[in-house]
Structures are given as C-alpha cells and as structure tokens.
C-alpha cells in the first residue's frame, strides 16, 4: 500500500514521515505523552555531522549525515539496518513515501531508496544542490533546488512532471495542499504554485531571502524570513494578514497545533502566537541562536538549539533541557515514549 505522508492517524508508535512530523507540520501534537527523559538508551554515531532532521517509520529511524550517507537505524537496538551512500553531501531531511525513503543531495539529485533494502529505486535531477526535503502529495514528489526551480516528479519512478523557475535559490521545504503548493525562495518571495501545472498563482515579497519552510493552517500561510519577520499570509491571494518582527533573521520553520504556532529566531528566542490574530502568547530564550524548527508534543514545545529544550506550551517556561542534541537544523522526533535527537556532531540519541 502506498502511504502519503499526510496527517498521521492514532496508532502507537506513530510514524513521523516528513519534516515536522506530517504534512500539516504539526510536529506530532498529541502523539506522545510528555515526560522528562531520564536516560539515553542508545547512541548511534554516523561519523559525520548531521545537518538535517531524521524521520521515523515502523520502528526504523532514517537520518542523513552530511557526508552523504543515509542511515536506517533499528530503534529497538540503536544499530544499523542498512546504509545508503549518495553521490554528494546531504543536507536534506529525508521523507517517506510508503516504504520509499526520499532525500535530496548536493549533487542536484533526489534519491528514492527502498526502505527495506537500502537500494536505490530511482533518482531525479536538478541543476544544483537540493537541501529541501522532498514532499509527497497524491504520489507526486515536490522539491525545490538551489538552481531556483521547483520540481514535480512521479513518486513511482522519478519521471519529471513539471518544473517552475522562481527568482532565487530554494532551500525551503514545500508545503503541499491538494491544489496549491506554498514555498519560500531566496529572492525573498513566498510563492503559491498550482499543484497540477506548476503555474505561479501568486507571490508576496518579504524583505529578504527565505530559509524557513511554511505551514498552512486555517487558510493562513505561516513563514519566517531573513528580514526578521514572521508572516501570516492569506493562502488564497498572498495578502499579509499579520506579521511579527523578531530580533534577527528567521531560518526556523513554524510548527502548528490548532490556533497555536511556534517558531524560533536567530535572536535566540522561541515565539508562540495565536494563529488567527498574531497575538504573541509568549517568547522564551533557549540559546544564543535558534535556527532549527520546534516541534509540538502533548503540552510541550521541543527545540534543538545549543542543546535540547522542552517548554511548557501554555507558559513558555522551560520544563527540562538536555546538554546534548545541539543542532542547526535538526528537529527532535517525539515517538511514543522515546525522543530521538540527531546532532550536528553526528550522534543520534534515543532518550527515554
């Protein structure tokens, strides 16, 4: 059966097939009971920095290290199931399409790898590095490339469907809805693109390039920009509904849960908002620089910055922190009774 990485249903432990948990970027809300981890049950060394976030499916953790190796790790034992070696460095967060693992590579390709064997199934090309995470909707894989184009390819064989050139480099992971894609670009614009054709439906300029990846909730596109501002745009036409200025650029991506959205800024703070009004609920310092994305657990927000932090969702107070899991772009996985962390230093931890 082909599974698309759309919102996970309740089962235990839940899958975590793409960046921030599912296509709604909920980051696993309500899928994990909260408690402070007591110990690291295993540690896996990739041998190279990990710049991206891991994903999780059927008791296997998939994590890519910068040296181009995709690691499939049995979470029961913390041991390698298989490794796949791409032709270049990897900064892309893997994503899952049924039993296929997709990941972008600095050689300009997206690789599809069999989740059981670790063998390559197909590859799709672009003209520059792919740091974004491939996203799947209706069996079509969408990804952005540093060559400035958005690509749509067939999820079964990687054959191109369409491509659309934007105005700058693309490192943002696309948000895919049924009829529209949303993507931020290095030219500072947020684009809405027609899913079937690649036609640009609207674009809205921000004040600088966009590294952040959007989330969409209640017809609002939520995204940060290097111009320091967190935007809520009308998903229908791109009009700015509200915005909030932080202290420095935003590379982090928002996680959402109902009317609650949270995002980090390079000023070192996490910011929590009411989605409809833009009202700031709280802001909390979690380090000197925050570039990674938060995730939302049951009553907590987790973030990797100088270490791993969990904050009370209601108040923003730090409820626990761990001095490991320092990361630039990795995101914790909250899976049942375990938390998985990938660190820039190349270690992957299972905390319980």
């Amino acid at each position, binding site marked *: 059966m082909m599974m698309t990485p759309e919102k996970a249903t309740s089962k235990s432990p839940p899958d975590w097939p793409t960046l921030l948990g599912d296509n709604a970027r909920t980051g696993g809300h309500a899928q994990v009971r909260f408690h402070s981890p007591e110990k690291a049950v295993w540690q896996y060394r990739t041998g190279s*920095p990990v710049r991206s976030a891991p994903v999780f499916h059927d008791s296997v953790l998939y994590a890519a290290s910068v*040296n181009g190796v995709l690691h499939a790790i049995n979470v029961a034992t913390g041991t390698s199931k298989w490794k796949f070696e791409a032709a270049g460095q990897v900064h892309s967060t893997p994503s899952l399409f049924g039993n296929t693992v997709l990941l972008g590579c600095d050689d300009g390709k997206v690789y599809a790898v069999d989740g059981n064997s670790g063998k390559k199934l197909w590859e799709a090309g672009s003209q520059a590095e792919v740091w974004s995470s491939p996203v799947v909707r209706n069996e079509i894989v969408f990804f952005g490339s540093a060559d400035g184009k958005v690509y749509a390819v067939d999820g079964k064989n990687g054959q191109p469907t369409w491509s659309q050139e934007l105005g700058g480099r693309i490192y943002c992971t696309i948000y895919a809805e049924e009829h529209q894609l949303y993507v931020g670009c290095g030219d500072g614009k947020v684009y809405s693109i027609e899913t079937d054709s690649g036609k640009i439906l609207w674009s809205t300029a921000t004040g600088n390039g966009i590294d952040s990846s959007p989330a969409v909730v209640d017809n609002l596109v939520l995204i940060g920009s290097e111009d320091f501002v967190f935007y809520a745009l009308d998903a229908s036409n791109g009009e700015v509904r509200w915005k909030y200025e932080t202290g420095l650029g935003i590379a982090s991506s928002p996680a959402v849960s109902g009317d609650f959205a949270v995002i980090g800024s390079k000023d070192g703070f996490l910011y929590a908002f009411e989605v409809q009004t833009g009202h700031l609920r709280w802001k909390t310092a979690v380090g000197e620089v925050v*570039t990674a994305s938060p995730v939302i657990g049951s009553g907590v927000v987790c973030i990797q910055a100088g270490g791993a932090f969990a904050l009370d969702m209601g108040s923003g107070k730090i409820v626990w922190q761990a001095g490991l899991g320092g990361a630039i772009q990795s995101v914790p996985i909250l899976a049942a009774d375990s938390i998985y962390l990938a660190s820039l230093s190349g270690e992957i931890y299972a905390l319980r």
Partner: protein
Amino acid sequence: MDRRTFVKVGCIGSASVLVQGLDPMVRAEKVPPAAPPIDLHGIPDYKPSPLGMPGLFPGRVVEVRDRNAIVRNRVSQPIVRRLLEQAMKELTGESSARDAWAKFIEPTDVVGIKINPSGAPACCSSPEIIREIIASVRSLGVPARSIVMYDRYSYEIDIGSYQVLLPPQVQIVGIQDAFSGGGVGYEPTVYCDANFFGEWETRSYMASIVAHQVTKIINVPTMKDHSAAGVTGALKNLAYGTFNNVARSHRAPHSFTNPLVGLMCTVEPLRSKAVLHIMDGMRQVWHGGPLTQVQAFIEQPGILLVATDPVAMDTIELEAIEEKRRESGVSSLWQHDPSSLTADNRIFFHDASKNLFFRQPGHIAAAGKLGLGISDLKQIDHRLRPS
C-alpha cells in the same frame, strides 16, 4: 573523541562557545619566551602578481559611512550599493565603478570572496555587501559559476543563511565541516610548519580552493576585536580562514597570532591572489570578538572600508576599536594585565574588562614589516568620505 571535539560537542549551537580553538580550558604553564621558528612552504616558483598585497594602492584606505546604512540591525541594500561604488571610485581614481572594478578583475577570473561568518548571526560579513560585490564582478562579464564565496566552516555559513541569500549559480563552499578531519580540501604541499605549544600536528595547510581554484580573492573581513589577536580584520580573515589547524597558535593566556597571521599572508599564492579588501563595518564589535552575540558590545556605525593594503586597513580598524573602548572606559587591546584574564567564557562574553588571552594587536605592524603594507598611521592615506 579528543578534548577539543568534546568541548565543541558539548556546546554546539551556542555561538559564544563555537570557539574554534579559543580554548581557555588548557592553559600554558609557562610564559613562552618567543615565537618558535615558522617554516613557510608556498607553491614553488610561483610568479608574484603586482596586484598582490599590498596591491595597487599601498597605504591608501577609503572609509565611507552612512548611519542609515544599517537601521535596527538591518543593512540597506541600496545604501550599501552606493557606498561601495563611491569607495571603489575613490580608491582607484576612476570615474565609473565598472572601471574601478576592472583594475582588479578580468572576465576570465575565478573570483573567490572570502567572508567572515564567525559570529553569525550577530556580526558577520553582511550578505547585502556580498551581493553587491557579486553584482559588480558579474558586471565585468564574470559568470556567476566563476564566483566562489567561501570560508573555513560550513556550519558557520549555514548559520548565516548565506546559501539562501546569494544569487543562483554562485558557488558557496565551506572548506571543512566542524567535526570532520582537517585534511580534506587542503593542499598538502603548501603549509606553515611550527611547534607552538608541543602540539602533535605542527603544520597548517593552505585551502586547495585558494591554492588552485580561484585566481583572485576579494577579502570581506568584519570590524571586530579578537580575544587572541587583538582585532580580526583583513589579515587575520585571510590567514586563519585559508590555513587549517590554526587554533593551536593560541593557548590561554598566550597567543602567537603575532607573527603567524602576517607570515601566512605572505605565502604564495595567497599573497598574490588577495587583490582587494572590503571591510564590513556595518557593525563594529568592540568586545567579545570574534564570536560574541552580546548586542551591548556591537555598535552599528554603517562603515565600509576599501583598500588593497590589508595592513593599512587593519591599522585603521584597530584605531577605531581602541577609540570605542576608550569611550566605554575599558582597557586598551594592548593591555597585558594578568588580573584581566579569565578562563570562563561566560565572564569574558559579558565583562568588557576581562579577556581570555594577552591580545596581540602587534600582528598588524609585524605584517607591515613583512612587506604586506603600511602600519604607520602618519603614512596611511586615510580618506574619510562621509556619504
């Protein structure tokens, strides 16, 4: 895991402790009497370029400034464009910016842009300035693919989001990853060899990208104090960003950045390829450099310095930071009072009277003695041009 890696692993993500070897946990037991012998090995028989340091205009430093160039920590692209054009014309005496750039760059060049991302996001080479440099170079007919923005550590480039902010096709290269071995990306026959503190690896190798790939280098340092070198400007940005294994030159409280910084800049082909220095003084760090994120020590004067002479440029920078420190009532960068030392990074980053090392701003004058430029303020043609 060795001790240095352990320190990094424990602290990663906190820019204040992403310290490339500024490691106060290991302290020299005795005062080293003098710098050890330093053997330099450049590319043999490399023909020096007349554009090489100190370049076409020894002793000349153009300073342009506009307070509106940076407002609430945001750099204005249009104002930077105007400032850079004004400075380039003043430096070269040309009436058009294009002709000014053409004195240094040819269409067939592979142009390296050496940034300083250390200290990102609080203070690093502004992407707005890099974009203007790229546009200027491209206006001469250099293809985007022949432009390489680079620095040593890819994770620092990543924190600065440079990869997103530059035009497509421009190459962005982190010579090495923070936690990988230092050998990848370096030329094994071009190196500086010295044993400073009994370290097991006594060589620092030149980046292959400098040795072989680029034909010209545009150096874009920032305006910062430096806990070991006194300041980090054009010289140090070039030297310690080009060679690996450089943190070994300073072990608290002692630093051999003088004379190593200048000596490294004399090694060919680095010396010949570094044809232009554009110092980003949009922000000015007067304590806690190079990595501080503490805004209280970061001014926003909106300055741009342009020169071909890195020694003269760094001399002007040193004076500017000294002046700011005097205004703020803290000690000179030349001060070597043992009571000002601390081994605690947290104290250092928040107390401007404390430091990790005996700073060595004398590395600038030492570089002057090596022929890299002019360090005597009276001889420097400092052209201050208000916008």
